[in-house]
């Protein structure tokens, strides 16, 4: 049994993803370095990771979000950046959690469209409220139809 000494105790790490036609992850990183103060910034291919005290991280994220509100997305991360248990530099292959991000990043431009519409509504450019989404569960097979299918199979 080995004693475990956590690194970066009391800190918060947040991912900042960017999927924008106007800004690249490198632009975002430069902006983040300018306002980082004592917080740690880690550049990634999709954006950055910010690690520091909670107040510090929230303040940095608020300023970064303002750069492109509809195309910058933020979420919490449990591990600090470069942790050998998660970093792909040590593990090889995709980082655990990559496939989840890949899945959602393919759909994120649809969410950006929703956020842009919301911003347009707030500015008074659009007045018509969008209809609520259809019920999430797909159409189910009717019992009578199922009975007919079963009856067809019985010789």
């Amino acid at each position, binding site marked *: *049994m*080995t*004693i*475990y*000494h*956590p690194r*970066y*105790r*009391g*800190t*918060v*790490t947040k*991912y900042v*993803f960017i999927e924008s036609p106007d800004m690249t992850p490198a632009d975002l990183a430069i902006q983040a370095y300018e306002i980082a103060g004592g917080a740690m910034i880690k550049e990634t291919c999709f954006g950055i990771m910010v690690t520091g005290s909670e107040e510090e991280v929230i303040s940095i994220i608020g300023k970064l*979000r303002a750069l492109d509100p509809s195309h910058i*997305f*933020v*979420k*919490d*991360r*449990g*591990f*600090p950046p470069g*942790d050998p*248990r*998660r970093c792909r530099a040590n593990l090889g292959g995709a980082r655990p*959690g990559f*496939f*989840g*991000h890949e*899945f*959602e*990043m393919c*759909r*994120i*431009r*649809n*969410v*950006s*469209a*929703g*956020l842009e*519409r*919301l911003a347009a509504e707030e500015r008074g450019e659009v007045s018509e*409220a*969008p*209809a*609520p*989404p259809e019920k*999430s*569960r797909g159409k189910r097979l009717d019992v009578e139809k199922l009975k007919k299918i079963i009856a067809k199979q019985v010789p």
Partner: protein
Amino acid sequence: MVKVFIYPATSLILSDLVARFGHTPLGSALGIRERIQTPGLESPPLQISPEEPKKGLKYAAVEVPSGVRGRMSVYGPLIDEAEAAIIINDADLAFGCMGCARTNELIIFLIKKRKIPVLELTYPKDEQEGIEFVAAIKKFLDGLGGKK
């Protein structure tokens, strides 16, 4: 500010939208961070110790596999803490081994059993669905009150 449990618990989209509209998202990162930052004995990779399946007994019976109980020790306290929840039903990214699949079913069951406000959606497949998706989440979160 209302604590909103998100499912999938690792969802970037839900975590961002809940925080953006002034509430607190409860996702797996919070449970993992708590374990990662607590000193003790090394138990890689997620610092899930042999004690966790025992804590999971609050949420799942003893005959349920320890993998489910271990996962529930992370998610269970978050569900207890939640005052509302948003569920995405067609979340392929939540697919995993039997432990993950059964835990996911149990999470949704426990959320519904708590009788808290729940919004169920699917991932937007095009821009029109994206507009409806964001509007539905905004309406739901505004309706919860307690905004910062």
